[in-house]
């Protein structure tokens, strides 16, 4: 299945759930509403034509105005690639956990919570793991984050 076919298939089968973003130059990026995320993911995984059973990556993005969560998916058997994007508010962002769909998402979601402060609902173990245990300086990957001993690269 080429990317064009994939796009056609998705627009035919998931018209309400996924919106194609034109940012993707190579692989398609789709926007998914936060409340529909788990359902869509489940469908994508179980879809006989797609079988997105491989959870590659989950990255949070802080653009300054909003939070994004980007899920990169692939399929072991069908050799497909797909990216989903969930757009969240900048403050008090909340997202559903997809670890029941892919257990691999567990640590990625912990990281999302820890570094960006996006609350992951229904997560079984939302504890610190990358930062020191006594970390109390907020969510360091946010663009507006600062701390006394944080030295920014000088603008040259």
């Amino acid at each position: 299945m080429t990317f064009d076919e994939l796009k056609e298939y998705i627009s035919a089968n998931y018209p309400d759930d996924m919106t194609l973003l034109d940012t993707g130059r190579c692989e398609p990026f789709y926007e998914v509403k936060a409340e529909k995320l788990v359902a869509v993911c489940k469908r994508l995984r179980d879809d006989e034509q797609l079988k997105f059973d491989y959870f590659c990556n989950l990255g949070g993005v802080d653009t300054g105005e909003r939070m994004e969560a980007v899920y990169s998916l692939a399929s072991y058997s069908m050799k497909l690639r797909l990216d989903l994007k969930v757009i969240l508010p900048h403050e008090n962002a909340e997202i559903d956990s997809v670890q029941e769909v892919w257990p691999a998402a567990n640590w990625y979601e912990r990281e999302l919570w820890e570094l960006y402060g996006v609350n992951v609902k229904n997560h079984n173990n939302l504890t610190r793991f990358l930062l020191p245990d006594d970390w109390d300086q907020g969510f360091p990957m946010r663009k507006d984050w600062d701390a006394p001993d944080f030295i920014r690269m000088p603008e040259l």
Partner: protein
Amino acid sequence: MKLLKDIKNLLIGMRITGKHLGRHAITIQYPEERWEMPERSRGIVVLLSDKETGDLNCTGCLLCMKACPSAAIFIDAPRDPETKKRKLLTFTVDNALCCFCGLCEEACNFSAIKMATMYEFSEPEKEGFLWDMKKLQEVGLDVDYIDTRKKKPAKKVPKPATDSGTATDKIVPDTLDSDAKQTPPAPEPDKPKEDGE
């Protein structure tokens, strides 16, 4: 039968190690023998001097400073208000920050900075890694290089940033003050860096 096979395989292992026992070591005995460094090898950063006049090749264009991914280079070269030419005042490289990527060398259009093949610079004091212009020049005196300046006339100097004179002030690394020196461990139960379990 499996037993015999196992014994055979164990003996094969001993044969291999025994075979190596007779071979000559491949060790380079460092202080006496040295690995011949490849020409491209990236060691410490040095400033190159003109082969004839002995002056520094650097024109203070700040390109290397901008290219450095870890901001290890600090140059103070304010523009002369009359001639509009830059005058190199300080050129400092913090070898503790340098990540030996070679980007400064590539950015330089004047054969002025080079990563020489030298690598033996251990110091008992942390302050020793902040090398000023004099030291950099001194170390770079013997470094051989291909002078590419003659082909590239000086007009190819890219337009320097207008605010470079002021922006440079804040990149002086600020951890080199005296409190960096560590006091010996006191025989008391102080664990300042302890993290709560």
